[in-house]
């Protein structure tokens, strides 16, 4: 089960609202490589994972992703606070605004609502961890692209923190993959599913 800590993982203190930035950064909440999908991916993949160390990584990274959802939401909240309808329109945030005002709702930068089809939970340890390695790189890529459009240091700072976390998670999942491979039967050199076909 989970408990809530009344704090962010890393501080978010944005003084200057900017609807155009909010429109881009919201993709890390509800986009194809965002934090909502990341947490759902890892937390759902845990159950059939046969190795305790890898369950540990999936649990602890999945939990951290929930905290990242909260950071992205805090960034969107602070970037859209106190804007006039004119500023909303100028920033291209009007299409979002008409449905959600300045409430937080998971969509991609192009406005597509979050979809569970953006991740898998295959019940196959190697398939899942391979996806997780890719997911961390894809999220890092999105943060790199966001940083190309951001000058405000108040926004850059938490985004850079989140970007670094993707790199750390990639390292940990790499170690998870090594642990899974170490457990494979020596005859299973084609890496059949150790969760279902050949648990050792």
């Amino acid at each position, binding site marked *: *089960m989970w408990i809530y800590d009344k704090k962010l993982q890393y501080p978010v203190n944005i003084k200057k609202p900017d609807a155009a930035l909010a429109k881009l950064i919201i993709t890390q909440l509800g986009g194809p490589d965002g934090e909502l999908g990341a947490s759902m991916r890892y937390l759902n993949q*845990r*159950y059939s994972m046969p190795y*305790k*160390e890898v*369950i*540990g990584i999936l*649990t*602890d990274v999945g939990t951290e992703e929930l905290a990242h959802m909260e950071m992205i939401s805090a960034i969107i909240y602070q970037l859209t606070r106190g804007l006039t309808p004119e500023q909303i329109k100028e920033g291209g945030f009007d299409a979002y605004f008409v449905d959600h005002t300045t409430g937080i709702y998971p969509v991609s930068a192009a406005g597509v609502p979050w979809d569970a089809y953006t991740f898998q939970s295959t019940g196959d340890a190697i398939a899942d961890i391979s996806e997780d390695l890719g997911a961390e790189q894809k999220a890092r890529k999105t943060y790199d692209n966001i940083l190309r459009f951001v000058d405000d240091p108040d926004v850059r700072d938490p985004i850079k923190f989140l970007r670094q976390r993707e790199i750390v998670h990639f390292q940990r999942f790499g170690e998870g993959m090594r642990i899974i491979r170490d457990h494979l039967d020596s005859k299973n050199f084609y890496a059949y599913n150790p969760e279902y076909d050949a648990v050792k």
Partner: protein
Amino acid sequence: MERDKLLKQIMAADFAMHETALFLDTHPSCRRALEYYGKMRAKREELAAAYRRQYGPLTYYEVEGSAWSWTDSPWPWQNKREG
């Protein structure tokens, strides 16, 4: 105490705290609820300390000692059938 029995008591105390917290969110000055919350918290702390000593950490904040014991105990969805 047996692991399952102790865990069940912690779950009961946690649930009592949680249910009372929901009530207190909308009734923050209810003295009876506050007293009950305090009582359950004391019970929870005592039970969790006993569990930690015998069976290991419930959260990674509680890990102590020279080895990382966080992943050693069974995960909550792994029941006895898995052995």
